[in-house]
Every structure is written in structure tokens, then in C-alpha cells.
């Protein structure tokens, strides 16, 4: 697989504050990578370094095999970017700004632009100073999505959008994904990441604390188990890999370490299983675990 984005040991300091300590991850061709982490963890800084807007202090960062600082213009020909807070020139209209962005990009698709303006229900004749937050965001999204790029970088792209528009965004991203383009998606809307992403990288205090495919990550964590047995279900508390055990009459709920699933099942079957439900962890569970610890 071709690596589209390669980051290795990235570091960045702002004065005394170490914003990025050690950030490494990759985005392969045709892959959607979710980039998640709490506020202030360094997501936007990492993205700005990728865009060549900020200069890294140490480490490697490449897109399409080119250095993000030295060859930023070459790279920018084939990428599109939407920041979380799109600011626009107040006295130009949305339509004008989209056209301008497409021209600056170089590879715009007029038909797709018109189609997306309709889909996102944007009034392109309105001056940008009259747009609400959500509408400004739409301008950025339409310009990015109608440009023909190989890598799309979204930094909390749907902030301020209503749920309907959010769904449209997700559909459009899926279409792009199907054509084999790569996407780096930073978002707090975990359901969005879960739906779109093949891989996630979780960043915390400037370090990548977890990365891999969602399946892999799930494997490392715990499933939520609901269990009813004929024997005394309380005995399950002593089994390896059982956490947060709670009992309500004869029904127990606990989270089970996936590594110890076998032991847990054996123990349960000795008690005579009447009911067994297992829910795989959501991204949110994963996320919370990393945030809280």
C-alpha cells in the first residue's frame, strides 16, 4: 500500500509549551483515518504542520512522499482542507469565494460545485458577512469537496452544521472514499468517525496514545456483558478480566477484557448460562478510556 501521509516523531513547541511531543501515524491510499483527541491535545497543530503553515521542531512529516514544509506548494495541488472554523472575506459572496478557492486550488469541478451548493442548500449570492457559522462551514466544505484532490484534510469539518447537513457531508465523504481518495478526519463527533474511518489515531497531550484499525482497538478493550445464570452470578466477580461488576437480582452486568473472554465464558458456563449478551465497545468507550486515564 502506498503511504499518502507519513508522520514520524513529530514535535512542536510554542514558547515553553510542548504542544506535540511525539506524533507518528500514517494514512494509506484509499484510507480514511480518524484523528481524535481532547481539546488542546494537538490535533490542529499537527494538521497545520502537515499543511506547511507551521514549521515543525523535530521529526518527519511527508505527504505524497514529499516534505510538508519544503514542497508545500507541490503538495497543495493535490489536497483539500477544511478548518473547524471557516472565516471568509465579509464583502464577497459565498459563490465568489468558492470559485476563488477552486481557482487557487487549480482542479475544480464546476458541475460538482453546483451540485453541492444545491445539496447543502447554500445561498451562494449572499455576502459572507451575513452567513451563520454553519453556512460559513458549508462554503469551506463545498469548495473542498468539489476540488479534485488525492488527500482531504478535515479539521472538525461539521462543527455548526445541523444533523441533516452532517449526514449529507458523511454521504459525500463516503463517495470520495469509494473513488480511492485518502481522508484525514479530525472530529469530536465520534459516530461520524466510527461510520467513516478505517483507522483511528488517538492523540493526548501531544502524543499518539493509540492507533490502528477500529477492530484492532476494540480487541484491546472490553466488551459490555449482560449475564443471567442459574447458579450464583456473584461468583463471576473473581474471574480474571471482569471489571465494574454490578448485580441486579440475578442479572449481572460487567465489562470484560477481550483477552480473557475465554476464561469468562468457561466460568459462566459452569454456572449455567440463561442469558448472555455482549456489546462491543463503541469508539466512545475507547475514547473515554483514554481521556479519563
Amino acid at each position, binding site marked *: 500500500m502506498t503511504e499518502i501521509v507519513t508522520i514520524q516523531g513529530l514535535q512542536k513547541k*510554542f*514558547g515553553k509549551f510542548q504542544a506535540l511531543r511525539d506524533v507518528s501515524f500514517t494514512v494509506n491510499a484509499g484510507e480514511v483515518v480518524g484523528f481524535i483527541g481532547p481539546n488542546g491535545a494537538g490535533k490542529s497543530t499537527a494538521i*497545520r504542520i502537515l*499543511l*506547511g*503553515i*507551521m*514549521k515543525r521542531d523535530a521529526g518527519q512529516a511527508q505527504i505524497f512522499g514529499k516534505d510538508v514544509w*519544503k*514542497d*508545500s*506548494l507541490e503538495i*497543495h*495541488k493535490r*489536497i*483539500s*482542507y477544511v*478548518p473547524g*472554523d*471557516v*472565516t*471568509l*472575506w465579509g*464583502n*464577497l459572496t459565498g459563490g465568489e469565494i468558492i470559485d*476563488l*478557492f477552486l*481557482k*487557487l*486550488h*487549480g482542479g475544480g469541478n464546476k458541475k460538482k460545485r453546483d451540485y453541492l451548493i444545491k445539496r447543502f442548500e447554500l445561498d451562494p449570492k449572499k455576502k459572507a*458577512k451575513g452567513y451563520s457559522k454553519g453556512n460559513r462551514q458549508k462554503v*469551506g466544505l463545498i469548495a473542498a469537496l468539489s476540488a479534485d484532490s488525492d488527500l482531504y*484534510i478535515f479539521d472538525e469539518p461539521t462543527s455548526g452544521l445541523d444533523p441533516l447537513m452532517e449526514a449529507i457531508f458523511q454521504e459525500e465523504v463516503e463517495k470520495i472514499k469509494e473513488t480511492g481518495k485518502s481522508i484525514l478526519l479530525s472530529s469530536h463527533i465520534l459516530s461520524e468517525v466510527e461510520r467513516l474511518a478505517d483507522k483511528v489515531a488517538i492523540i493526548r497531550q501531544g502524543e499518539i496514545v493509540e492507533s490502528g484499525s477500529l477492530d484492532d482497538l476494540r480487541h484491546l478493550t472490553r466488551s459490555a456483558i449482560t449475564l443471567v445464570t442459574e447458579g450464583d452470578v456473584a461468583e463471576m466477580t473473581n474471574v480474571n478480566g471482569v471489571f465494574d461488576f454490578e448485580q441486579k437480582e440475578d442479572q449481572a452486568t460487567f465489562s470484560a477484557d477481550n483477552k480473557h473472554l475465554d476464561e469468562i465464558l468457561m466460568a459462566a458456563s459452569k454456572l449455567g448460562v440463561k442469558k448472555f449478551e455482549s456489546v462491543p465497545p463503541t469508539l466512545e468507550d475507547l475514547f473515554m478510556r483514554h481521556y479519563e486515564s
Partner: protein
Amino acid sequence: MRENFAQWETLFLLNLKRDWKKIIVWILGFGLFSAAFVPAFKEIAKGNGLLGMFETLQNPAMIAMVGPTPVGTAVDYTLGAMYAHEMLLFCGLFSMVIAVLHVVGHTRKEEDLGLTELVRSFQIGRQANSFAAIMQIVFINLLLSLFISVVMISFDAETISVEGAFLFGASVGIAGIIGAAIALVMVQIMPASSSATGSTLGIIGLLYIIRAGTDVSNVDLSMLNPLGWTYLTYPFTENNWIALVFALIFSLIAVVVAFSLERGRDMGAGYLPSREGRESAANSLLSVHGLFIKLNRGTIISWLIAFIVMGAAYGSIYGDMQTFLESNEIMKQMFAQADVSIEESFTSTIMMVMIALVSILPIAIVNKLFAQENRAYLSQIFATKVTRSRLYWTSIGLAIITGAAGILIAAGSLGGTAVSAMGGRSTMEIADFLGSGFNFLPSLLFFIGLASLALGWSPKSGKVVYVYLAYSFLLNYFGGIVDLPEWFSKTAIQSWIPRLPLEDFDASIFITITLMSIALIIIGHFGYNRRDMIEGA
């Protein structure tokens, strides 16, 4: 090179498209202001006008304000010489200020807003935006210079030579470029756009005051001053083009420095570190007036310091006045006949100038309330039990107090320096200066009243108050030089107020204007309490 400046021309064209209305107003409005007073000056020049003006402007006080002339005798003082003498310094200064505001608005301001981030994600060079901005300034000032020259030539006055007209235009244009170059350096150093604007304007103000001193004491020293390279070109007399060469070299170096500084910093960052703030609010912050004082503190302190410097600079001239009078027979007779001292005469003029400048601060404080409202900073405060009246009166009160403090400091600094500069020969006391200053208090209140009225009824027009201030300042300023019709000069509020200590205090005018101002403030309050709050417009 490509990484840094790619596609600057696209941004350049985009900026022209965005700004075309502003550029037209800039070139036509300001160009006419610079060039079109030639007929008015022809009127002044009639009869003994040139002679009288020549003598008047030999006064060190006048030199401190408008600059020197290279002409040695009144015979050589032509219309062209007078026009350049009286107009060029001001036009240059004005040109600088406009260019500074424009450059910061197109560079650092857009960075602060987040526009730059999006633009940079395209195939745009890292410094293309700064380069486009500076090229736009060069382009606009080139057009402006040409326009000014052509307008001046079109009057077909004998002593307004073609060479001189082109030099005059070029001097105004180069002033804009110098201002833009200084601004571009400060943009890199300062942590935000507002401090970049403030520090650049501060530097320009300082250059103006320094040149006031060197013009009076030793003009050669003014040639070391970037501001000097504009008006010391002496169009229509010496046609000193070499000053423009200095200006160009200086601007080029400043721009190169700015670009290398920009290469070394991250987007949104400056070279001056931003200090770490407090973890919790001090008690002094926890009230509406505490908050407003804190919000305005930086502005107030820097202005008050500027007033001290300004007063001291003008005050130091008093020492030279008697020496000047000894050397000039005609002036000596003029003052002897009028039965006033040259110091008193100067005080009455310079005080008008200073209090007009002091008036900027309270207007800015009143206008700030709307700026805060418009950026939605106040929306969370509106939702509390704090009333609109509270916000309004706190702002107005703060404006009045700082305005009065400004008069005290400016007049006190002028008086203190003047009295000590005159030494034992002093004919005036500090109380005379304070009296002369506070005599203008009603005009300051009137400007606060106008700003309040705008705040209450038409907040977007708050900036018009500055325009009126500039207008009435210029009327008074040139009123001393040009004979204006009575009704025309009375459209400026300061024209109603007698000039102390030259004239006598008029209590009825003092009280009338004060009451009118209070009425304006109350009407403004009425509007502010009932109008819609405007957020994000």
C-alpha cells in the same frame, strides 16, 4: 522563492477586487485633499499675503507644526513654496497613517481572523499575502502620486512647476510606502493586529514630534528622520529628489527585514512573547466599571504617555521664542502692537491642536462599547442583570474622566516644560496653561456627546465622529492661516470657544456647549436603551 511568494499576483488581483471602492475613495478623496487647495492658496497669496505668511511661518511654533521652508527671504516665497510648506508634511503624515491601517488590515488582521490559514492550504506561497499587500500599497501610492501631480499641474499656476508637482505627488506617495514598510515590520514583531497598528502609529507620532524639535533647532537632523524624507524634498523650491532615494532605500530595507522576520515565525505568532495571565480575576475586575477599565487600560495608558511627550515637545519650544523674536523685526512689531506675548499667542494655538488630539481618546472609549457589542463580546453580559444603562453610563463616565485627565496631563506637561524652558523670563504660569486647556473641555464633551448619540441611534456611524473631529481640527488649523467665512468656520465646535490666554474666557459659551453635550449624551442613552443590539454585522 516559489515556496514563499507563489501566486502573490492572484492575491494581489483579489485584493484589488475586494478593495476597489476603498481605493477609489482613497485616491480621489485624499488626492484632492492634497492637491486641490491651490486656488485657495492663490487667494491667500494675493497682495501682501505671501509676505505675511512667510513671516508668520518663521515662528518656531509654526515650524514645529508645519515644518520649515528652505526659502530665506520673503521675496522668494512663491505660491508653490507656500503650498509645499504648509501642506506637504500633513499630507505625508496622513498618507502614512492610511497605508499603515491598510497593510495591517490585509496582513496581521487576516491572520488573526483565521483567513490566512485557509488561503495557505492552497498553492499559495507562505509570504505571498504580505508581498501582495506591499505591492498593492506601491500600486495605490503610484496612482495617488500621479493623480496629485496631474491635479496640481492642471491649475496652471506659474510657480507650480511640473517638476515640483511630480515631486510633491511622489513625496506623498513615498510617505505611504514608508508607513507601510514600518507597519509590515511591526506586524511580524507584535503578538496581534491591534498592537501592530498601535505601535506603528506610535512610532509615526514619535517621528513627528522628534522632527518638530529638530526642525526648530537644526533642520539637518530632520534629514535623519524617515518622516523628514517626505516634506524635506522641498517641491517648487529646491526640488530635493535625493530625499526620496533615502526613503526608497529605507523602505526596501524595512520590507526585507519584515520578510526575513516573517520567515522565522509561525502563523499567528509574534516575536514579543505574550505574558501568562492570572489564574483568577482580581477584585478590581469584578464589576462593570472594573471590566471596562481593564479593557481600555492599554489604550488609555499609551495615549496618556503620548500626551505627556507631546506637551513636553511643544513646551520645549518656548525657550527659543524670545530669541526668535529678537531676530525678527517685523514679528517683534506685530506682537508689540497686539499687546500679547508670543508665548501666549502660541499657547492659544497649540492648545487647540492638543485638545483636538486629546479628544480622540474619549471618542475611542465610547465607540469601543459598540465594537464590543458588534463582536458579540457582550452577549453574555446582556443576559445578566446588568442593565444597558449601566453599560452606557460606565462607558460615558470613563470617557469623560479620561478626557479630563488627558487635558490635565497634556496642558500640565506643556505648561511645566514651557515654564522651566523659559526660566526666569517666564510671563506665564502653569495655571494659565491649565486654564487654556480646560477652556476646551466643552468641545471635548461635545465630541463625547456626538459619539454617544451615534452609539444610541446609529452605532455604525460612530466612526463619523472622528471625521467630524478631523474636519473641525483642519478648519481651525487652517482657519489661522486662511481667511474663512464666519459661518463656515463656525461649523467646527472649537471655533465657538475663545482662545485662552489670548482672548477672554466666555462663561456663557462654556456652559451652553456643556449643556448641549449633556443633552446629546442623554438622547443617546434613550436610543441605546431601546434599540436592537447588533451582533456580528
